């Protein structure tokens, strides 16, 4: 056995001795951490304004760039949702909107929110900012590639936005882009719109691959001394697993985008069956539209967890810090994240129950889908058990976390309905589905984003966001989101189909009118409430209270940088050495209610701290 192992043994013996209250001679070895394997990272420091703020190689600046670009697309998506709700609630006021416009808004809202907003925000924004800081690295391992990653994303967003201005407008095929109708005449944006969408998605995948390689290698190969995988904050675990998913799921999107581009441009028939149009047979024939659905959902389902897993990770950290208690079942949380990630590759066809699949297929995918509920429920219990008897601070961050748990449980339970084939078939393509996925992967991760913004803003900007405005923001958003999506479950049960421009004189229309108006009004208010955050940020940057070094008294490394906000290189002359996990809160016998990750065991020898 190695020296390493023996050291551990002596350390364990010491700490158990200490717990007995003995103050025997302290073995100096208990603070031992192996020397550095990798050596110092060579960094390229910027020499000009452009290198510092535009084509910047510092992961923190790239993170903020990702964040701002993603928020911009998110605001576009929000405005599109307003327009949709205007049409659904008050069609008489939306005279300018045709059915084609409506489909285009539906499509662009979906694609923007899922891919360009949530994915980019969690992985590009939080990933870039937090990974190097949390694992104790100077920067991402390939800063240049990281910079390219952002600019590729930027171009992808630009191409996507350009599709609003081309003849025919953006594609209106629904965010799933199902062929054959996506590229056939008659679908809005079947000309340039869909082409730009496919190009933009391909660019996004390429850009993300560059970033994803950075996140993965930084986490696997560039941790600081003492930082084992099982001492990483759950935020890093969540982002890491989501990145792995993305690296394996985006290829399917890329391939389907390439094939559909060829179907569109070169008249190949990968996805196009024989089609009759106005009595005439089109050039297409012999392709398989179902193949596209499989490819798309092989990407699409892991995509849900690409959004959800970082949210799980971040919320775990926020709850632990603001409840002043270690996260309950850390290892279980890690394995749940990994398990959910692995399972997410075996459930994709539950999006295709109505495609006419073999019943045994549906049975298989329903089973795997419901199995995911097990690790997910474990996580929810652990969050609640972390709160249980914690020293909970009901501040804005905690409010968002509590909002997340409630919303997520809600969306998760409706997921159990939809995961069962026989229940899903009647509910398929109704507002129940809309309510489900907005709750579980729209509102819930968004709550985490908001909490994370309030939590880490002092680190990024060095100033504290206004708590009062934050509470207004939270309560309007939380209650408003429930006002929007709770009634939608009911709409789904009475059979109101999704993606319909108008309900005409259908029988459920008469009973749904009032509810649609109510939902629309709530949507306008919730959307407007998001600008409270933007106002809060601007106000804070101008006149906000200066933040102290570690305002939340957290343990993880990002709060222990040489300066706040951290500079290029993050940690000054010496990288931190890690001795423990980031969750040593309220340890009996400790002077403060938190023990930073950098605190050596010999400094807390009289406390009942566990070895992690």
């Amino acid at each position: 056995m190695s020296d390493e192992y023996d050291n551990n043994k002596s350390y364990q013996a010491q700490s158990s001795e200490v717990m007995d209250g003995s103050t025997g001679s302290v073995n100096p070895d208990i603070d031992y951490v192996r020397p550095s394997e990798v050596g110092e990272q060579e960094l390229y420091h910027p020499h000009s304004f452009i290198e510092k703020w535009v084509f910047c190689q510092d992961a923190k600046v790239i993170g903020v760039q990702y964040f701002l670009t993603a928020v911009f697309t998110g605001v576009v998506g929000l405005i599109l949702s307003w327009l949709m709700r205007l049409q659904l609630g008050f069609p008489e006021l939306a005279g300018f909107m045709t059915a084609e416009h409506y489909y285009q808004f539906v499509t662009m809202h979906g694609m923007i929110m899922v891919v360009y907003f949530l994915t980019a925000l969690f992985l590009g924004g939080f990933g870039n900012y937090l990974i190097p800081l949390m694992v104790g690295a100077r920067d991402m391992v390939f800063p240049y590639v990281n910079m390219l990653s952002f600019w590729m994303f930027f171009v992808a967003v630009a191409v996507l936005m350009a599709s609003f201005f081309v003849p025919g407008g953006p594609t209106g095929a629904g965010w799933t882009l199902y062929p054959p109708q996506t590229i056939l005449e008659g679908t809005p944006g079947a000309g340039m719109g869909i082409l730009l969408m496919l190009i933009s998605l391909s660019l996004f995948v390429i850009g993300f691959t560059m970033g994803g390689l950075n996140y993965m290698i930084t986490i696997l190969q560039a941790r600081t001394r003492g930082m084992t995988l099982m001492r990483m904050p759950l935020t890093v675990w969540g982002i890491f697993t989501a990145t792995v998913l993305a690296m394996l799921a985006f290829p399917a999107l890329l391939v389907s985008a390439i094939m559909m581009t060829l179907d569109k441009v070169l008249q190949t028939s990968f996805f196009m069956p024989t089609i009759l149009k106005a009595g005439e047979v089109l050039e297409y024939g012999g392709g398989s539209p179902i193949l596209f659905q499989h490819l798309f959902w092989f990407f699409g389902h892991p995509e849900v967890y690409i959004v959800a897993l970082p949210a799980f990770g971040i919320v775990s950290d926020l709850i632990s810090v603001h409840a002043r208690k270690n996260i309950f079942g850390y290892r279980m949380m890690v394995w749940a994240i990994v398990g959910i990630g692995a399972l997410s590759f075996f459930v994709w066809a539950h999006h295709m129950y109505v495609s006419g699949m073999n019943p045994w297929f549906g049975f298989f995918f329903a089973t795997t889908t419901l199995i995911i509920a097990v690790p997910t429920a474990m996580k929810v219990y652990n969050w609640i058990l972390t709160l249980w008897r914690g020293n909970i601070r009901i501040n804005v961050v905690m409010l968002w976390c509590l909002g997340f748990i409630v919303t997520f449980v809600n969306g998760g339970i409706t997921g159990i309905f939809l995961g069962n084939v026989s229940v899903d078939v009647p509910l398929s393509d109704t507002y129940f589905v809309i309510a489900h996925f907005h709750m579980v992967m729209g509102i819930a991760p968004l709550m985490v984003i908001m909490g994370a913004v309030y939590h880490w803003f002092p680190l990024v900007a060095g100033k504290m966001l206004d708590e009062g405005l934050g509470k207004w923001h939270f309560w309007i958003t939380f209650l408003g989101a429930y006002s929007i999506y709770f009634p939608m479950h009911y709409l789904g049960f009475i059979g109101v189909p999704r993606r319909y421009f108008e309900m005409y004189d259908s029988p459920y229309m008469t009973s749904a009118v009032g509810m649609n108006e109510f939902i629309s009004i709530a949507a306008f208010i919730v959307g407007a409430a998001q600008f409270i955050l933007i106002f809060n940020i601007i106000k804070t940057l101008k006149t906000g209270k200066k933040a102290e070094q570690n305002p939340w008294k957290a343990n993880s490394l990002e709060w222990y940088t040489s300066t706040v906000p951290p500079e290029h290189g993050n940690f000054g002359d010496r990288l931190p050495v890690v001795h423990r996990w980031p969750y040593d809160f309220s340890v009996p016998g400790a002077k403060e209610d938190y023990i930073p990750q950098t605190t050596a065991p010999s400094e807390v020898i009289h406390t009942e701290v566990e070895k992690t």
Partner: protein
Amino acid sequence: MSEPKIDGFELKPGFKGMASDTASDQTMFKGVHWGKAMMWIFLLSDTFVFSCFLISYMKGRGSTPVEWPNPSEVFALEAFGVPVPLLLIALMTFVLITSSGTMAIAVKYGYEKNRKMCGWLLLATALGGLTFVGMQAYEWSKLIHEGVRPWANPFGAAQFGSFFFMITGFHGFHVSIGVIFLFIYTYKVFAGHYEKGKKGWFTKLKGDYVEIEILGLYWHFVDLVWVFIFAFFYLW
């Protein structure tokens, strides 16, 4: 019992070693260069890209109502007046696999700091790749001449042309990118950039002969993918 060590960390063999590496701090893959780890993970992702292509091909071939053309007729090449099935493909495969061999030796000489040999072998690899792309262009033009198009195919199912051009094109694109980088690195090696510690054109960071190995990983991968494409298109 003495196992190799990295900074006091004992590298044990087998599952035990994997577990202790994973449980340790700093790095998971002990002694593995960042760039090398990155290339492996990129290749894993790229494997998924090609898998998606090939699975789509299988599905497309399986579900098309028109009969699939017979590969040994479509891909036959006339040599001395006799049509020989798969002749060109056999040559292409031979060239590409050989270039993988020269690449492997280039990596060895790189680590031995034998600048000249490394450079020449990289050049040979690049030329092998270029020959492959050239032969592929010839094959494409021959098929196009015979009337095969991405959207049509006189020998049977139109999807044959679609999948063939798309997948060999995507692979050929990979080879071409590799060839470009091989030429760039041939220049860098001959010019002695690694010995002089010259900084990269874009990254502004110093390089190392490990970059040759990283390039080699990519090149071997492109070869491996070709073996699968070969099997699925020409032998099935």
